[in-house]
């Protein structure tokens, strides 16, 4: 069998070595096509090149070529013909039975004017470093663009070249991907102590070459004069070859592969930094090695899969220890900071302080090993103890309670795992742990991982895909029905998890009315009856009131409808009115009245845009600076009916006093003297979070365009039931990544995002009006199929504070008597 490998970087090399070691029968004859003229070398330790290491010292392939492997250096692959199963290079054609893409990444160079000026370098290959060293000879100063992992490595390189070194980082602190702001500040002070200048919250806006070196303009910062400029602001997967060959690629770049590392063509695998597993690329070498091992196993008939690796890291950057493990922040954070000695440690704990969720160590990472192992268990002793390089025993005891709701111990969970429960749902079903409040689910997952059980991102037993992958599948393959999807890509007949997810994806992609044809069967009861089910089986009705602005006439209609149908009436938190206690068979009659008065569905029942709240704004308020109501109405009408992974809430405040509470919303807008500030990722609810500032002082057109893109990007890439707050927190690169994609168009997606939103706006129709006009859909709104007008006899009401409420409801706490 003929195997062609494109790329001989660290992962490509690991792959051919692992295959040679395991393919003892000589099943595969391997050809490697390498772009560089050099065999694989250790890219992680590149700055060692300036400490005296030679290219030979860094090579990873010192001892010739494994038997049966033909390596073609300096012969880049130009095209893949998948139909003919041939890879073309300038020199010839290489037929394959199986192709492995290990094309790696290219450096990301921000699109600033002057970036090609003499003295500007990338930081990726030994050739880059050789050119940098030659240029730097006899020069005095160097600047690195990028204050992450790679940027600080590059800063070390410049320092070793004897240059006076500066670092410019776009985010507010160093290593934004790994560290929190105080950790980043501590690292900064350690690095500044080495004589390196650090500029954070600063973007390079232009580079001009003069006789005396480079002049670098920055946003908000000084103009920097430097002899050498190194771009080390991250990498992007090299997926162009795969793209040209028609292979599926991920939303954010990278060759789309499943957990077996197979691309959309079963004869083609992708590994390392070019591979997007479940749509996610990994920029570290350890996951790449794990991918190489999985493909080797698969090629030899094994069944290995790649499970998302532990993102914990421990590094020494410019001589400073930095380590992160688990999650960087928890409900409860214990922080130890010692500026005198440049030490910072933070442990993220569960809200009862019993469980270690993760942490950050800067300055001394001696406790990394034991702490990382303790994630998911209790913290033994004081945090201060962990700043010394001890290794206390931190194993969670067997009788420790994992699930306090159902009193399930660690031993019970591990016994279930030993009995064959190999995923979280199985452990939940067997032990009931995690079935109540769900807060221990991450701990169960970590116990599973600790027991050596691979975790899956599959949404349920019927699909081995995450929501984002399902979205890509449905969108790219143009799949229009659940039946077609489950027949080709799933098993069984679906469930209450995957069916509503698929229904939502189809709705986001504009597949007509949500109750059309087979789609009706996919909907959760709320979407199925276009109303919100309540504890007694009745429904509540919420007409849309855009921006919370309503005429007296319409208000009277709502009152009359509520009175005539005996509905309990309450004002909602989103500035509209909720009518409770409607029986299924009453819904059409209620809506006929509402639609006749000009109301539309408020989508309170959907994972969709709910409301855009507003304060009264400059029209009336003596403090208001912009028309917040007008904008709120326009936005609510623009995004009404937009289906998403979870509900979407918004608000517009007319001045900085923020009466609309916009920063608690998925997207919130606050008026300024000059325009609008846009905040994203806010949340009330279970885990409150203030929204982050994405844009400031923009005009309405820019604002709306950015919100359009924000929403479509969220809809395409978030997990099931993931609000924007946790989606942004989970984005690789967080808010900066989001800004790069939807403001700077770093992935070239914006035209597509804009078009998707334009399609949504153009195809909007009121769901309730459409039901009233369709006899087939109307027929479903009956109490009993054989007695359509007979009310469910189990439903009954009593009166409380002059309104009807369910007769059967929980006993409430004793409340003080209120005279009214």
């Amino acid at each position: 069998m003929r195997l062609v490998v494109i790329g001989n970087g660290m992962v490509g090399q690991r792959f051919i070595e692992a295959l040679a070691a395991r393919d003892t029968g000589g099943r595969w004859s391997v050809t490697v096509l390498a772009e560089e003229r050099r065999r694989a070398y250790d890219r992680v330790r590149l700055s060692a090149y300036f400490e005296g290491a030679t290219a030979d010292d860094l090579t990873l392939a010192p001892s010739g070529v494994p038997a049966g492997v033909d390596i073609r250096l300096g012969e880049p692959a130009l095209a893949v013909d998948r139909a003919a199963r041939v890879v073309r290079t300038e020199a010839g054609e290489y037929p394959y039975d199986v192709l492995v893409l290990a094309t790696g990444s290219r450096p990301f160079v921000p699109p600033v004017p002057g970036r090609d000026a003499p003295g500007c370098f990338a930081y990726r290959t030994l050739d880059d470093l050789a050119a940098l060293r030659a240029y730097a000879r006899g020069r005095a100063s160097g600047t690195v663009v990028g204050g992450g992992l790679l940027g600080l490595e590059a800063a070390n390189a410049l320092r070793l070249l004897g240059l006076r070194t500066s670092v410019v980082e776009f985010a507010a602190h160093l290593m934004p991907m790994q560290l929190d702001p105080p950790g980043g500040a501590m690292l900064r002070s350690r690095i500044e102590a080495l004589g390196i200048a650090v500029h954070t919250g600063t973007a390079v806006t232009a580079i001009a070459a003069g006789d005396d070196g480079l002049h670098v303009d920055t946003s908000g910062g000084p103009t920097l004069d430097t002899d050498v400029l190194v771009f080390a602001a991250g990498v992007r997967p090299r997926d162009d070859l795969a793209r040209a060959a028609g292979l599926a690629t991920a939303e954010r770049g990278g060759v789309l592969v499943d957990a077996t590392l197979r691309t959309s063509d079963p004869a083609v695998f992708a590994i390392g930094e070019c591979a997007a597993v479940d749509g996610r690329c990994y920029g570290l070498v350890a996951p790449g090695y794990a991918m190489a091992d999985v493909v080797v196993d698969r090629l030899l008939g094994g069944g290995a899969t790649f499970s998302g690796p532990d993102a914990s890291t421990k590094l020494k950057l410019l001589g400073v220890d930095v380590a992160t493990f688990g999650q960087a922040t928890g409900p409860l954070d214990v922080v130890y900071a010692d500026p005198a000695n440049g030490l910072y440690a933070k442990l993220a704990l569960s809200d009862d302080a019993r469980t270690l969720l993760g942490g950050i160590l800067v300055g001394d990472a001696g406790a990394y090993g034991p702490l990382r192992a303790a994630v998911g268990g209790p913290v033994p002793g004081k945090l201060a103890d962990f700043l010394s390089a001890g290794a206390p025993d931190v194993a969670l005891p067997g009788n420790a309670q994992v699930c306090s709701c159902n009193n399930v111990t660690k031993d019970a969970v591990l016994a279930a795992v030993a009995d064959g429960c190999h995923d979280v749902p199985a452990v939940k079903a067997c032990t009931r742990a995690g079935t109540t409040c769900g807060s221990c689910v991450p701990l169960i997952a970590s116990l599973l991982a600790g027991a050596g059980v691979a975790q899956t991102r599959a949404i349920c037993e019927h699909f081995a895909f995450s929501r984002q992958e399902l979205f890509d599948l449905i969108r790219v393959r143009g799949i229009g029905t659940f039946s077609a999807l489950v027949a080709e890509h799933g098993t069984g007949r679906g469930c209450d998890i995957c069916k509503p997810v698929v229904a939502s994806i189809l709705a986001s992609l504009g597949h007509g009315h949500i109750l059309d044809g087979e789609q009706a069967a996919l909907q959760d009861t709320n979407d199925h009856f276009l109303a919100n089910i309540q504890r007694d089986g009745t429904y509540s009705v919420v007409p849309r009131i855009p921006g919370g602005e309503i005429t007296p006439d319409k208000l009277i209609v709502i009152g009359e409808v509520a009175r005539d149908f005996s509905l309990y009436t309450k004002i909602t938190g989103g500035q509209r009115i909720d009518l409770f206690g409607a029986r299924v068979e009453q819904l059409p009659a209620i809506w006929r009245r509402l639609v006749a008065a000009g109301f539309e569905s408020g989508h309170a029942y959907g994972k969709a845009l709910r409301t855009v709240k507003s304060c009264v704004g400059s029209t009336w308020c003596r403090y208001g600076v912009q028309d917040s109501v007008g904008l709120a109405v326009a936005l609510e009408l623009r995004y009404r009916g937009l289906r998403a992974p979870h509900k979407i809430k918004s608000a517009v405040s007319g001045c900085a006093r923020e009466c609309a509470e916009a920063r608690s919303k998925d997207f919130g807008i606050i008026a300024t003297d000059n325009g609008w500030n846009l905040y994203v990722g806010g949340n009330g609810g279970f885990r409150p979070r203030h929204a982050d500032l994405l844009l400031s002082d923009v005009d309405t057109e820019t604002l709306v365009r950015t919100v359009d893109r924000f929403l479509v990007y969220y809809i395409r890439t978030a997990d099931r039931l993931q609000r924007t707050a946790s989606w942004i927190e989970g984005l690789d690169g967080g808010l900066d990544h989001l800004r790069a994609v939807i403001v700077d168009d770093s992935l070239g997606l914006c035209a597509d995002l804009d078009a998707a939103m334009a399609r949504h706006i153009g195809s909007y129709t009121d769901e309730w009006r459409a039901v009233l006009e369709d006899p087939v859909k109307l027929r479903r709104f009956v109490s009993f199929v054989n007695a359509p007008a007979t009310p469910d006899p189990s439903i009954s009401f009593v009166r409380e504070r002059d309104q009807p409420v369910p007769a059967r409801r929980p006993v409430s706490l004793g409340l003080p008597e209120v005279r009214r």
Partner: protein
Amino acid sequence: MTAVVATVLWTPVCRLDDLLPERGVAALVGAQQVAVFRLHDDRLRAIGNRDPVSGAYVLSRGVVGTRADRPVVASPMHKQAYDLDTGACLDVDARVPVFPVRVRDGVVEVGSP
């Protein structure tokens, strides 16, 4: 000795065409509320409509699917799954009655158990 002959009383409730595949309807069979489901292959199942966890009569409005190849409906209230063949709840200790159901001349009939 008296021979006891079990007789099932069949109540016609609707036409098969009235049922959406993989969805349910509620029907009144005598005084009992029954949830009738049409599976994707046109097999029919009928169980009690009362969700034993919430006490509300809503099981006919749940999402129909499979769990490990058994046909199930998920309660629309709190998502517990009920085996449509046996009435057993697969998530908590609960059970709902199962009713015989058949199609005659295109008409769906539910039997009294």
